[in-house]
């Protein structure tokens, strides 16, 4: 009896959690195919909101803008995050190390509103003095990179800690200069983490609304900002369609990536086992 309860209670609890997490998404996906404007009643299947999506210039422009920003943020974050991680892992002692480590990590715990607000003040100040930069694409990228870099750094840092330090020494011992050591040995071994850092900051940037809201200028609206604006003026199923497309793209990308990683891991394990096997056969 006790085990019966335990078993089914566990299952039911899990179902409840999944429902709580994914029911809203499911609801949204279903209603993106609704044939009418109705929010609560499913009147029939249609693709009209997907057609409307293509005609909505605000959404299309917002999408391209968000894509540009996310790509730039991803690249910048991955590069800067890698440098920061490298310094923190490989140089155990330098003046200001503790401060540096704290500052790079700060955006992870700082409320986004605070980051956005302070960046806005800074940008306004700079613009007043130098007449540049205009708020828009560039300022949003800078703001997102500040956040994305912290995430990318954490990912790369944990990978760097795993990489055997002695392979870098071995490279140097064999005649590689420090720059060659980095590009020929260190980089190939942390590439996967850098890609992960890129993807993470890319997604962070792509769906960020708070920092974008502070740093965007007139007429510059990222996709999340457009969606947010629509939602404020009453729900439009076009947004459902847009969001559904986004979810499917991200889901497919994430699944493809995980399958690839899992397959690689399995193959590695298999090959290592085979090597051991053939060797013990020889003995």
């Amino acid at each position, binding site marked *: 009896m006790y085990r019966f309860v335990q078993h089914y209670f566990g299952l039911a609890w899990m179902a409840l959690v999944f429902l709580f997490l994914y029911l809203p998404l499911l609801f949204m996906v279903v209603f993106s195919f609704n044939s009418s404007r109705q929010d609560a009643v499913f009147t029939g299947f249609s693709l009209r909101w997907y057609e409307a999506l293509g005609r909505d210039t605000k959404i299309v422009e917002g999408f391209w803008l968000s894509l540009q920003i996310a790509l730039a943020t991803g690249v910048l974050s991955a590069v800067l995050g890698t440098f920061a991680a490298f310094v923190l892992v490989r140089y155990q002692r330098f003046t200001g190390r503790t401060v540096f480590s704290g500052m790079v990590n700060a955006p992870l715990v700082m409320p986004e509103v605070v980051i956005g607000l302070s960046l806005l003040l800074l940008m306004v100040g700079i613009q007043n003095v130098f007449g540049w930069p205009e708020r828009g694409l560039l300022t949003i990228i800078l703001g997102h990179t500040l956040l994305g870099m912290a995430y990318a750094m954490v990912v790369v840092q944990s990978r760097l800690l795993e990489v055997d330090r002695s392979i870098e020494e*071995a490279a*140097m*011992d*064999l*005649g590689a200069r420090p720059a060659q050591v980095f590009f020929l040995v260190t980089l*190939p071994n942390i590439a996967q983490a850098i890609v992960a850092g890129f993807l993470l900051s890319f997604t962070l940037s792509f769906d960020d609304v708070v920092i974008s809201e502070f740093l965007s200028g007139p007429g510059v609206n990222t996709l999340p900002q457009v969606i947010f604006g629509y939602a404020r003026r009453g729900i439009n199923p076009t947004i459902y369609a847009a969001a559904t497309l986004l979810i499917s793209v991200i889901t497919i990308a994430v699944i493809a990536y995980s399958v690839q990683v899992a397959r690689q891991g399995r193959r590695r394990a298999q*090959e290592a086992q085979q090597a051991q096997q053939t060797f013990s056969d020889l003995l």
Partner: protein
Amino acid sequence: MVQTEALARAAQAAPFLQIQHIVKKFDDVFAVDDVSLDIAQGEIFALLGSSGCGKSTLLRMLAGFELPTSGQILLAGQDIVGLAPYERPINMMFQSYALFPHLTVWENVAFGLKRDGMPKDQIEERVTQMLDLVQLKQYAKRKPHQLSGGQQQRVALARSLAKRPKLLLLDEPLGALDAKLRQRTQLELVDIIERVGVTCVMVTHDQEEAMTMATRIGVMSEGKILQIGKPAEIYETPNCLFVADFIGTVNIFKGAVEVDEADHVIIGSADCKHYVSHGITGTQGMDVHVAVRPEKMSIQSGPVSDAQRERAAEVGFNLARGVITELAYLGSLTTYHVKLASGLVVKVTHTNDARHGSSSLTWGDAVYVWWSGSDLVVLTR
């Protein structure tokens, strides 16, 4: 010919590798404390010591990964302390092998050659030659994780020899292999190193490994080299208590010098008087330690006959009585733990050279233990 003779003389005058008064301090701790060492060309020299004795730090200073606090390192007469690791004609085989996981076996071996800008066809030739040497030609296209531990070790060796370094450094070369594989690989490794003819400095905590592979051994403790010598010298004539105790098993008697003659010495200790059939550099009344290796002791149940004793002309000396408290039968030998009257437990090994021989001794037996005066080592420090 004249020239080679001159070269030979020069080599004799100045050793190939000279380590002069090297000191390395980490903060206020001496990792290496004023070490001086000469190594001849073609030698395999082992730095032996337990972990934290400074042997690895010394090796890393030779490779260039650590900068000595003071002192000089001369390789073929040239001071190399100021050179970066990538400028030194020295290559190292790492304990973890440190193979590049993203490169194939072939690319791993070629890595150093490419850095030197060697022409492609020569690289091809050299890598093939190296893989031949370690018998891994058929594995050239594999990645390191597709190899077993022993094969990885050979790739690491091939990679460190590929540039034909003047000096090869081995950091615990067999530490990562299991015991069975280790013994076989020791001799293989020495064979390859000797065929290549490279001078070699290795670091190990495994005395068997050092004894098997090295032409000379330096025993290190707390940043200092205590004794340098051939394996047999280190084992048979240790120069201090630490070395005697560190290498192999040894029985130590505390005692004081009673008679100090030029050709013999008599040392009194709690269980017996020791007759030493050679002079020592000590003075009468001095506190010393007497060391005897277990395999140089004899054990028997009956009293030692005068005939046995007279061969050594030591009647009344080097004989103690005790009780067997432990015995370990190891097949080829048996180790007895014998508790003497003073409470000191000595270990005696007996070679089982006859199938049904004297191994009738067992726990609780009262026995005589004796040894010859020429097998004693007197340690004054």
